[in-house]
């Protein structure tokens, strides 16, 4: 089972890492936007006004029911067709993953706030804390404890799902791998195994520490309940 040297011929390995950086870049930017917008959406989902809540709910469901791939096509091809605006693949990817991440983060934030028992707030108010203080010292820290592991898990899902962006022409790690395999099909018939194995370990190196941290934090927050 020879052929491992395919990974190190020329600048193949550097190219894979470059592809990985594209994957990470799209993920990081999308996650950053999602956190900010998702927190706002989550807050909006807990307001008393029914109309506001309904609009948020509709947004959440629309984003959720469609596969991310369909959204990528809609944004990448659809927007160009409709507006004549030429969005690059990476920009389109960030838009789609932000739309999706915002929806999911919003729902997680809503859930985290609603999981803090009503009595916690009443206890805080009874002690003379203002509404603002009871949010800062009592509700927010408790909501955050349950929220962080979920957000990390969502991030790993987003990182893995970015593999789809190769289908709108973005050269991320998977696409680079495919190029290497295709270019060396005859000299290195086993290239696919080695290249995909390398990509497997790259995803693993990024996602495993995250999901490990998430489960550690989740266990810790369960323990102190």
């Amino acid at each position, binding site marked *: 089972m020879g052929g491992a040297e395919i990974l190190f011929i020329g600048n193949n390995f550097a190219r894979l890492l470059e592809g990985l950086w594209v994957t990470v870049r799209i993920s990081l930017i999308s996650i950053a936007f999602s956190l900010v917008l998702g927190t706002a959406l989550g807050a909006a989902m807990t307001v008393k006004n029914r109309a506001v809540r309904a609009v948020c709910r509709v947004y959440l469901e629309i984003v959720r029911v469609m596969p991310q791939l369909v959204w990528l096509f809609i944004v990448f091809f659809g927007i160009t067709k409709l507006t004549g605006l030429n969005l690059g693949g990476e920009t389109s990817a960030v838009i789609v993953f932000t739309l999706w991440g915002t929806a999911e983060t919003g729902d997680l934030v809503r859930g985290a706030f609603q999981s803090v028992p009503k009595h*916690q707030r*009443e206890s805080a108010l009874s002690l003379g804390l203002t509404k603002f203080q009871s949010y800062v010292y*009592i509700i927010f820290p408790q909501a955050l404890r349950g929220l962080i592991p979920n957000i990390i898990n969502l991030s790993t899902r987003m990182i893995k799902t970015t593999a789809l962006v190769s289908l709108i022409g973005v050269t991320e790690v998977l696409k680079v791998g495919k190029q290497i395999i295709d270019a060396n099909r005859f000299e290195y018939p086993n290239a696919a195994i080695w290249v995909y194995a390398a990509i497997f370990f790259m995803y693993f190196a990024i996602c495993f520490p995250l999901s490990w941290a998430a489960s550690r934090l989740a266990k810790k927050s369960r323990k102190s309940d």
Partner: protein
Amino acid sequence: MPETEHIIDINGLVKRFNGTAVIDGIDLSVSKGEVVVLIGPSGCGKSTLLRCINGLEPIDAGTVTLHGEPVVHNSRNLYKIRQKIGMVFQSYDLFPHLTVLKNIMLAPMKVQKRSKEEIRAEALKLLERVGLSDKAESFPSELSGGQKQRVAICRSLIMNPEIMLLDEITAALDPEMVHEVLDVVLDLAKNGTTMLIVTHEMAFAKAAADRIVFIDGGVIVEESEPDEFFTAPKTERAKKFLKTFTYSR
């Protein structure tokens, strides 16, 4: 200054939930140093009454005042009035992310802005008083129900409230823990803490109360001294209620 200084004055209080009056015109005053125990069947409005007194519920008619200052749900200075009213709930509601000591120190630090050292010393003294000195650095999840409730009492006491409202504080406890909590309350009663207590523990009510207020159907049915109430209740309803606590075959 009048001989009996009123801490709380309730006049013509009405509270409705979805059109049904849970409290249907209640007048009640609590004087300084007095321990008033509210008893009555479940759902008679006792707990709601306590919640109205510290503004957790909006009221439909009447007034609640603390030292003549009106307590109004959602009003701007409500948080200032609440500092003078300590409330302990059935479900303890300690803050799970903070240690016992921090649970107790939070409000005096953030609300009253007293010095940390002074508060810390006072918190430790309170914990000693309720027999929990060794739990200062524990988290609530490491405590039993009775211990949590004693911490919750300390958390309210450290604010030096003018009155303590205790809302069925032993109802969620295992029977063997009820005593350790009620002993703390009896100790407070002996030391002149003004309290308004809702409870189903009749023996405790008899021992702690200066005055028993029997509520049924959202109104005060009978009001008397504990000895009189438990031995010779004046009303039929009170007699019937007290019978539910005795067994015979």
